[in-house]
């Protein structure tokens, strides 16, 4: 190898380059805070690329998307950034809002700055999930539920979560442990959302333990515990699983793409959730964030594109008319199944998180 000789010129060049690299964070950090930029942390495929392109062209504001796949991760990153967040908009589910608000991470929404606020479907304007202490905290985007998904080619029809424990599908099921633990509690006749257990930790622990033990007992049913919607899609497509718990969006997307998948709400019921865009407190580009939020509300076509990409139902008015029959069918449920969806509550979240997290670790370790 050729020996490196440090000459005066090479030393100075190297130092200049090194200084540039070391100074990079100082250059990058203010780059988040430009009036012509909006930084958005959201789920994959939530914001249509066509909308981003048009928005950038119309306003000159650059949209920078950062992907997340978990509310907890998003909360932790935002908490760690403290008073100087590097994102302007985050995507929070309604029932997790109090956690974000309690940590002083979000600003109440000034709906007066959103000219298109009235273009939301009436059921979602000031939705109770997004209203905390009289203030609205988010622009509702998409609604979904925890459903039972099955491959119709290989499984029999079922209207009960019991199919997840049917020995016929041993090693062919999958679920997100924390979500399915709550569904299992419901399947066992308990309150998986912990609202009924406020102030009753012993009862809550007993119900949690019962579901935990049941899932450990049936661990051999599981092919894989997953975390992201894309994983369950991949497992269904590869036929690694035949039946599983799935958020409605990823399953509906598979149906739209022509895969033999069905999503349903079993008779024991399930939980629903509402995603919203929220303005981050002390975000570097708040004005651009409001411009973005107003633009995204401007037409049902944008809502339809979001639904089409994510598989979740839109909170915008008039989207149904824009979707085609196949897309509508993939996202719609019979009335009696819709009635079985109970939206997650923000009540008693700390107890729920604590007990569910512990049970998840125990199931994994078992």
């Amino acid at each position, binding site marked *: 190898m050729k020996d490196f000789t440090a000459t005066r010129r090479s*030393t100075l060049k190297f130092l200049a380059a090194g200084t540039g690299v070391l100074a990079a964070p100082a250059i990058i950090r203010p780059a988040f805070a430009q009036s012509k930029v909006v930084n958005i942390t959201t789920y994959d495929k939530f914001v249509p690329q066509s909308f981003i392109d048009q928005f950038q062209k119309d306003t000159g504001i650059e949209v920078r998307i950062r992907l997340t796949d978990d509310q*907890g991760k998003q909360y932790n990153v935002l908490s760690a950034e403290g008073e100087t967040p590097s994102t302007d908009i985050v995507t929070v589910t309604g029932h997790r809002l109090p956690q974000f608000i309690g940590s002083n991470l979000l600003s109440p929404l000034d709906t007066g700055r959103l000219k298109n606020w009235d273009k939301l479907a009436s059921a979602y304007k000031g939705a109770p999930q997004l209203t905390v202490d009289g203030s609205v905290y988010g622009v509702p985007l998409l609604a979904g539920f925890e459903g039972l998904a099955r491959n119709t080619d290989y499984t029999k029809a079922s209207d009960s979560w019991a199919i997840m424990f049917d020995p016929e599908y041993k090693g062919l099921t999958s679920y997100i442990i924390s979500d399915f633990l709550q569904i299992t509690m419901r399947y066992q006749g308990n309150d998986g959302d912990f609202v009924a257990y406020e102030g009753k930790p012993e009862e809550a622990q007993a119900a949690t333990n019962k579901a935990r033990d049941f899932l450990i007992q049936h661990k051999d049913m599981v*092919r894989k515990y997953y*975390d992201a919607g894309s994983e369950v899609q991949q497992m269904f497509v*590869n036929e*690694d699983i035949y039946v599983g718990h799935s958020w409605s969006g990823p399953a509906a997307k598979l149906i739209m793409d022509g895969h033999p998948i069905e999503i349903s709400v079993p008779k024991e019921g399930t939980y629903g959730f509402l995603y919203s865009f929220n303005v981050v407190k002390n975000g570097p580009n708040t004005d651009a964030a409001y411009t973005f939020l107003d633009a995204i509300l401007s037409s049902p076509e944008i809502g339809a594109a979001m639904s089409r990409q994510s598989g979740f139902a839109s909170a915008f008015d008039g989207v149904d008319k824009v979707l085609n029959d196949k897309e509508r069918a993939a996202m719609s449920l019979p009335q009696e199944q819709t009635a079985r969806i109970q939206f997650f509550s923000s009540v008693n979240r700390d107890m729920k*998180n604590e007990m569910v997290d512990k049970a998840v*670790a125990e199931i*994994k370790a078992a």
Partner: protein
Amino acid sequence: MVDTTTTHARSAKTAPTPRYAGWIGKAVGSGLYRHTIGRLADSRRVRLAMLAGVPLLWIAALHIGPIFQMGRISFMADYPPAPDGGSAYTLANYELFFSDQLYFMPFVRSLIFAAVVTVSTLVLVYPVAYYVAKIVQPKNRMRALLLLLIPFWAGELIRTFSVIMLLANRGAVNVALRELGFIDRPIPMLYTSFSLSFGVIYLLALYMLLPLYSAIEKIPTPLIHAAADLGAGPFQRFRRVILPLSKDGIVSGCSLVYLTSVGVFAAPLLLGGPNTVIFPEVIATLFHSSNDKWPEGAAFAMLLLAVSLSTVGLFMRVIGGRSVRLM
């Protein structure tokens, strides 16, 4: 004695021929520059110190710094600290690990998994490294090595997904077996201990290959020929000559693979099944859990770091002696 008068006279004669025009030339030619930066840069020691300073600063800021920060968080009672600024320090986060068996099994599983992966990688990669270093003609060695390295140009996630596409029920292996008539139902290979080990060995093979190749390539071929001339069979030649002389590569390769596999996270998450949960996933769950558990996660990460470094240190000392270094 040095004739300083002559030196100064020569300096004066050869000095300032500006290499740059404009303000750079003026700056370089200025008295301030020549008496400060220029004077410093004239010294070989200072030049080396300045050169080493940047990477050392880089390593300290971006590699060692975060570990210290994580160590600090691991002793904190709350993270992020309360808005009033008060941070209490505690050992409770470490005590949690020892007080709850829940975390012990994945920890032990991680260490065993890393050991199995390391030994398997060594066994699988050694013949490849030997083939490239000693059997392939010298003129083709670099080409062969390059061919082996090409898959590693792709990122870790891409290679992990390629394993998924290979081993899934509708993946390449099952499809091939079915088309050839060996099976009529897919063999469940993905999301098992097999897929996890296969994937991690594939991901980390490079860390074993390069130190092994480097060590084996340095073994003088006449020594192997001499052993053969003296009647040593292939196994004896391997055991008495090749293996001892490639010890440095084995220790370095094993240390690198062990340290990497004990902390590997993405592959187990994507390739593992319900019974293959290992410790990094437990740590990640603490960081991502609904309530703030960064201090617990940090404490567990520090424990894993300490145990894995100690294990490797012990291994290097016992097997490698004093002379072996990682690279």
